């Protein structure tokens, strides 16, 4: 049943892709900018611009370009980057592991901090944990991420000197042999523990920054969900039976309270990927966000579309996984 449900959801993805490609194609072609000129660079002669326009297929009518793009997309071909002249799929493959690394780290930090904080906040309302949770919420939701990134860099690198300013590895450290593209995973596979340590130290700050707004949301959501659950009759029954508070919270309340944060986590994965553009730019992370930033700056429309499609796909798949996870968290849910 779950498989059927998953298949239905993935089928829906096709319509999403068509919609997104149509919208993006329209938007990018309505912009008063010439991607051929952008690719040719300043100072290019008109002949060079026209040559490039022809080489990149930009001299074709819009509808031909769109249907050609869709046709190629069905074969897994996302087109050629006008900036690098490489297949967009190659570029995405190259930059995706770094973003996934950052995204997963940010989500882990989010859940490891936000869920306990939310639980503490709910079980000790009005006390220190609750105040800290509210502070995180205010900071996370109120401060622009770009500014937080610069501030964190200034504090942890500039003043305290305990974390690197950016990049994925130190200057003197060579990347591990390529297996997945994730330096953490590849360093473990290769048994390169010094590289692992260096990679982790570089990952920590951007991941914390990315996690901050999500911690704000998740902790408050966990808190309110927890409070609602703690007010239920079965909790009162559990306490009446003489169960320890730890058992009441951990075994009886938390599992039910996690439904809401879990739902949010699926959406947060997509948001984190979307926020990555700014954070990766500040920390020179070298992931999809940085790729998207360069592509937008240089009007590299095939890459912009590729990144948008990928993010859309990640969003849908993450939410699907979360939905599937529901069935394990709450046995009452069936598909």
């Amino acid at each position, binding site marked *: 049943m779950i498989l059927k449900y998953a298949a239905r959801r993935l089928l829906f993805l096709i319509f999403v892709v068509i919609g997104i490609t149509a919208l993006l194609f329209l938007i990018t072609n309505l912009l*008063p*900018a*010439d991607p051929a*000129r*952008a690719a*040719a*660079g*300043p*100072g*290019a*002669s*008109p*002949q*060079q611009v026209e*040559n*490039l326009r022809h080489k990149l297929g930009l001299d074709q009518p819009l509808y031909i370009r769109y249907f050609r793009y869709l046709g190629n997309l069905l074969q897994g071909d996302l087109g050629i980057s006008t*900036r*690098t*002249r*490489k297949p967009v799929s190659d570029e995405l493959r*190259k*930059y995706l592991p770094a973003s996934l690394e950052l995204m997963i780290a940010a989500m882990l930090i989010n859940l490891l901090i936000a869920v306990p904080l939310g639980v503490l906040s709910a079980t000790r309302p009005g006390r220190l944990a609750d105040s800290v949770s509210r502070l995180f919420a205010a900071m996370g939701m109120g401060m622009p991420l770009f500014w937080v990134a*610069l501030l964190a*860099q*200034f504090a942890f*690198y*500039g003043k305290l*000197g*305990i*974390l*690197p*300013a*950016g*990049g*994925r*590895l*130190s*200057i*003197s*450290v*060579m*990347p591990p042999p390529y297996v997945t593209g994730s330096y953490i995973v590849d360093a473990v596979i290769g048994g390169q523990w010094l590289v692992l*340590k*260096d990679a*982790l*130290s570089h990952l*920590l700050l951007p991941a914390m920054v990315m996690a901050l707004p999500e911690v704000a949301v998740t902790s408050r959501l966990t808190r309110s969900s927890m409070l609602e659950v703690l007010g239920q009759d079965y909790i009162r029954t559990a306490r009446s039976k003489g169960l320890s508070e*730890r058992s009441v919270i*951990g075994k009886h309340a938390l599992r039910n309270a996690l439904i809401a944060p879990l739902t949010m986590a699926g959406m947060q994965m997509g948001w984190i990927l979307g926020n990555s553009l700014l954070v990766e*730019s*500040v920390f*020179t992370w*070298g992931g999809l966000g*940085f*790729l998207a*930033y*360069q592509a937008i700056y240089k*009007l590299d429309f095939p890459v912009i579309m590729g990144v948008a499609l990928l993010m859309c796909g990640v969003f849908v798949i993450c939410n699907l996984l979360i939905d599937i996870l529901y069935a394990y968290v709450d046995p009452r849910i069936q598909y």
Partner: protein
Amino acid sequence: MHSKCKTSWLIVALTSLILTVFAGAALGRSATTLVVAQAEYAFTFDPIFNWADVNRISRLAFDPLLQYDAETKAVIPWVAKKWEISEDGLTYTFWLEEGITFHDGTDLTASDVKYTIERIVALAEGVSRFLENVTNVEIVDQYTIVLTLAAPDSALLEAFPGLYIVSEDGVKANETDGDWAQAYLQDHDLGSGPYEVNLHEAEQRTVLNRYGSYWRDWGKNNIEQVVWLWIAESATQRLMLERGEIDIAMQVSPADLPDFEADPDIVVHSFSTPIILMTSFRTIHEPLTNVLVRKALAMAIDYDYVLEVAYLGYGQQARGPLPSTAAGYDPSMPLVAFDLDAAKELLANAGYPDGGFTLKVSYESGQEDKVRTLEMLEQNWGALGVAVEPMAQDWMAQAEMQLDPNSEPDVYINYIWPASTNAAYLLYEFYSSDVKGVYDNNSSYWSNSDVDQLLYAAVATSDLATIGNLVRQAQALIVDAAPAAWIAERPYNLAASPYVKGYVYNPGHQETLDVFHMWLDGKP
């Protein structure tokens, strides 16, 4: 108890992980490694592109046929040890140095030079526009090559410092689907330069190691390795420079310069560049068709304000379209003085005693100096009774509008950004009739047949004295016609640690580093 144990172990594990991460996240530093941070990512190392971001690597990894000397403002021998130009200016003969090897160990010969030119012409991008006049390339012997031109072109010699020689064997061995190894050159080099690309992590860093078999004498250079870091934010570059993690920050915010100047551990290198900030008057729009109106508007520009506010005291006022870095620059040419009263009088003489017209001014909102200039124009031209209607655009939209004679803007705040160090070519690409509506450079849409004739003659001869004379005459006519107000020579500032020595700005390789002639003196 059991769950308490599990929790305790989890806390211990997490704490250990955190301590591991924090403890000794030290950086490897070497006294012979130059670490440079810059914001513009080079998506390729293909030297066919002469943009600054690519040229920063090309200059280290490749050799050009000739080099441009910033001090003498002339081309000097490099891979070509000498050259000869025929009387009619149609034949260029180059004799190459022997014993130069590419990083793959193969010899650099005339065949590689010919192949490089053929490659550039075939790809028809980047520097190919400088070779449009070349009709034939002939190999005389292993170290002699002859170029034949369709017409004389004095700018050709000065194009060669930007034409880097690639290994023919290397290109052929790494070609994919007839791409002339363009894909390969995105991550690798095929050059003979003093440094070779050792590691390239996309959007992260490029590491170049000293090429041990380089053919020239290293002199004082003791830099074994160059690390380019792509750091988008100037604030981050500043932090890293202050902490000593980088040696040079190439994109510094003007706002940081006073702090850098005050810091004994940082040296600010500031140079005037060939890039001139200007307001181009669309000479086909009324009332800008009237030279008196244009001159009045030029006199209402507060040049010192732009230098102080936009460039924080760096740079210098321009004396016309030629920068001070160009051969042919005339330092005796008078500066246009800021004089509102004189401007009003001139405007009255032109028939606009109270101004009474509006000018649409196009500018790039992301460029600080252009924004400050606009603000000043709004005030000062407003004092003449001339209203300013700003039009914020990106450079591509501006380029499209500059080409179109019917486009809206009356004035463009833009740059003279020369593609060549050749003064005649510079004036030609910005003020000749040929480029009206062709290149986006002649944003004034101005033409003068006398100027055209002088520039044609200057381009057609290779005699430097004659070129200089013709250029001075052309410049005088251009300045007198005032199709633009040339405001300031844009300064280039970078901040470096004091042990970085030997840096000299080269207008032939704007915003790059000539690491070969640099050295580190006492880097810890």
